Structure formats: structure tokens, C-alpha cells
């Protein structure tokens, strides 16, 4: 084969690879802008606090609830069974295996909707599947799950189920978050260990 032809083929191959590779594969959005915008504008990216309460009560293994607040805020109080991936630490490659998977849905929450929306957009832009935001964040959780009370004479079966769901989630939230710091740390470490075993990591 003519060496000139060989080098040209090689260069062409490199060019094709360069043309289709993102600038930084791990840290640059893989979705096209129009695609990400249309996903962002859809309403199906939200789950309600009542849905999350149901996931907590049923210990649903098809979802992972992700607290995107700081470690300090997470330690102060968090939704039972949630894991902490602070927004500031999102780029840490350690989180990629947790977020970029097809097994479970990622449900992000912050105190309000802002930080969770940032994380949702970044995770979806990076091409991670199954991302959702708990609408209203922890403020909505407090308002609806922790503080809501039924005030009426008669309660329907649907309302009864709704309030029972909230009551059970409220109990779990209070129980976990009332633990002394030492026990809480022990509990979270045990959970992290369990998570790493499920992910196939080592101790």
C-alpha cells in the first residue's frame, strides 16, 4: 500500500473520531441543545412529595432519592433512605456509577426547586437516564408530609390512604432524623456500605 494513502487513511480516521467525540466526554453535555430543551420543558420530570413518601414507606428499590444539598444540611435532616450527592461535588467521578445507570430512577431534591433543577439539567445533559425532581423540595415535604392535618367530618378511603401514607413517612423521617449524631453517622455509614456492595464495589 502506498505510504501516502496509508497516512491519509489514518488521518481521516482520526478526523472522524475527533468530529464525533465530545470535547470532554465525561464532563460535557452529550445531548444536543434542542433535545435537552424539549426534555426540560416537559412536565414528566417531576414527582410529588406524596409519591416520594410512598417510595419511602414501601422501601421501593426501583428509585434512589438523592439529596443535593450540602453534607451539613443533609446531616441536619434528610428524607429517609436518601443519599447525599452535594451539588458542589457533582463532578466527582465517584458519583457517576450511582447516577449513570438504568436500574433505578434518580429523584433529586434540595430545599427548594433551584438546586435540584440544576442537577437534573446537568445529569440529563450528560446523558444519564431516568432523572426526576421532587417538586417543591424539602420545603414542600415539610408543608405537605410533616405538617399537614386532616380537618373534616368525614374522610374518604382515598383521603385516608393519602394521610396514612404521609403519617408513616412522617414517622420514618422523625425517627431517623432524631437519632443522636453518632448513631446517625453509624446508620449512614452502614447504608453507604450496603450501597457499595449492591454496586459491586469493595468495602
Amino acid at each position: 500500500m502506498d505510504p501516502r494513502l496509508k497516512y491519509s487513511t489514518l488521518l481521516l480516521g482520526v478526523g472522524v473520531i475527533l468530529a464525533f467525540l465530545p470535547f470532554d466526554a465525561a464532563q460535557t453535555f452529550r445531548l444536543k441543545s434542542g433535545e435537552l430543551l424539549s426534555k426540560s420543558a416537559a412536565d414528566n420530570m417531576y414527582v410529588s412529595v406524596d409519591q416520594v413518601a410512598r417510595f419511602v414507606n414501601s422501601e421501593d428499590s426501583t428509585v434512589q432519592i438523592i439529596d443535593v444539598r450540602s453534607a451539613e444540611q443533609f446531616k441536619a435532616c434528610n428524607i429517609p433512605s436518601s443519599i447525599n450527592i452535594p451539588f458542589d461535588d457533582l463532578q466527582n467521578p465517584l458519583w457517576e456509577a450511582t447516577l449513570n445507570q438504568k436500574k433505578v430512577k434518580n429523584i433529586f431534591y434540595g430545599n427548594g426547586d433551584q438546586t435540584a433543577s440544576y442537577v437534573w439539567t446537568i445529569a440529563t445533559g450528560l446523558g444519564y437516564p431516568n432523572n426526576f425532581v421532587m417538586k417543591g423540595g424539602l420545603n414542600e415535604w415539610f408543608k405537605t408530609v410533616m405538617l399537614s392535618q386532616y380537618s373534616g367530618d368525614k374522610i374518604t378511603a382515598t383521603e385516608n390512604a393519602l394521610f396514612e401514607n404521609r403519617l408513616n413517612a412522617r414517622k420514618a423521617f422523625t425517627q431517623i432524623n432524631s437519632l443522636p449524631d453518632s448513631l446517625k453517622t453509624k446508620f449512614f455509614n452502614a447504608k453507604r456500605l450496603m450501597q457499595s456492595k449492591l454496586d459491586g464495589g469493595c468495602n
Partner: protein
Amino acid sequence: MVVLLILVVIRISDQGLFKKDVKTAIEATRNNSNLLSPAELRQLKEPWMVVNIGTSDIPDSLQVEHSIKISFENLLDQTDRKILEGVNGSLILYSANVATASKAWIILNQLGFKNVFILNTGGNPEELKYKFQPDTTARLEQDSI
């Protein structure tokens, strides 16, 4: 080499592709430095344009003099994108729904738009308004720890 050059040019000029590292977005949002209050907006010395991407109008009380309305869904349509690119000075996003403005901000930041801010009208959107009261008698069962 020419082919290689052409392919790289195609890649760079594709407006639908994101070119920034997510690190730039994370760093720019640190300490809410991408948020502007109405008072801060009025004190800006450089030119600015408020883009209302929400479904409701900008309240009169905010006294925003120059604004345009572009729906969030159409933000990157050819015509609207040209308008955004042609904004002289800072581009301020407004939506009554903070989630919409936040998503739009990340998308524009990652597309390489500079001086993009969110008009924040209601204090810190990430402030926890409730204080958890621990139940000091609560204990987990030993085997669940």
C-alpha cells in the same frame, strides 16, 4: 489534512452541541453569584436585557424597563437564539417558576453564553423555611442500624 480540518470546523460550528465543561456551571452558581435581585439589576452599570421565559408577565412592581418575552420551549429556535446572541450586555432570565429559569440558565451557560443571570424576586430560593424538631425519645431498633 483538509478533510480533518473540515470535520473539525463542522464540529465547532454545530450550534446544537454543548461545548463547555459542567465545572463552569457549578462554579458560576457558587454562592448564588448567578442570581440578581431587582435592586442589584437597577444598579447595573452595563446594558442589560430581561428575557421573560415564564408563562406570566413580569410584575409591574419590579420596574423592569426593557424586557422581551420568549417562551422556554422556543428559547433555542433560530430566531430567538439570534435575539439572545444579539443582546448587548447582561442577559437576565426571568420566570415566576424558579425551576424554569434554573434549567434555562444551565443550558445557556453550557452553550457558552456569557453574562447570564437569573432575576431572583423572592429571597434565597434554597432556604429551608422549616426547622426540624427532633423527637428525643425516638430510637431505631438495634438491628436496623
